[in-house]
């Protein structure tokens, strides 16, 4: 649709016309702000906990578990140097043999969700699929935070 609009504007005499082809979806997936009636409704990216602990593939599970639990968490997100999500360890994975590496112990390629998804939708999905937590990422896979189901359900009930 936007290419036709761009050409039409040009035909009307506009000399500097640009087409943001990836559009609103790309903007919102990057977690950037919007205006409108939905802007005040909580979304996954706002409720997700940005302080979730992270670790790298090569770390040892025992040390990571101690660190994570010492911070009061029972989950850790595996990221690379660009904060791209590579894996996830929830309580079940964290409870494995301390001698494993994170790469061996993690749940690889976890399902991720974009920051603009409505919190009510997230609460419903996480409840239906029995997910305690879900990583929220930008469209290029970078970690925004970890959304806890308990947070999602609570926020959705206050809408």
């Amino acid at each position, binding site marked *: 649709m936007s290419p036709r609009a761009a050409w039409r504007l040009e035909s009307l005499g506009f*000399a*500097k*016309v640009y087409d943001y082809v*990836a*559009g609103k979806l790309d*903007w919102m997936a990057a977690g950037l*702000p919007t205006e*409108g009636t939905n802007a005040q409704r909580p979304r996954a990216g706002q409720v997700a906990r940005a302080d979730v602990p992270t670790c790298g593939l090569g770390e040892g599970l025992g040390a990571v578990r101690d660190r994570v639990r010492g911070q009061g968490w029972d989950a850790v997100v595996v990221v690379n140097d660009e904060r791209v999500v590579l894996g996830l360890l929830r309580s079940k994975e964290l409870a494995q043999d301390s001698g494993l590496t994170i790469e061996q112990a993690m749940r690889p390629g976890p399902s991720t969700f974009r920051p603009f998804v409505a919190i009510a939708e997230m609460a419903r999905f996480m409840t239906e699929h029995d997910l305690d937590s879900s990583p929220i990422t930008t469209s290029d896979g970078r970690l925004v935070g970890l959304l806890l189901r308990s947070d999602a359900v609570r926020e959705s009930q206050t809408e």
Partner: protein
Amino acid sequence: MPVEIDRQEVRRLLERGAQLVEVLPSSEYDEDHLPGAVNVPLRRIDGQVAALLDQNRPVIVYCWDAA
């Protein structure tokens, strides 16, 4: 000829005073739009648009996605 741009270029152009135009129907614009965007649905782009927009400033159009 219109130039295709990405998100980074959108932000750069906005800093330089570009105008943002969402060409989706007004119901979709009302729910969510980029900050500062005006709504001119595709079917309503005509000569009157020239009066709403500044022809001397860059114009960025967008819809939902590339599909």
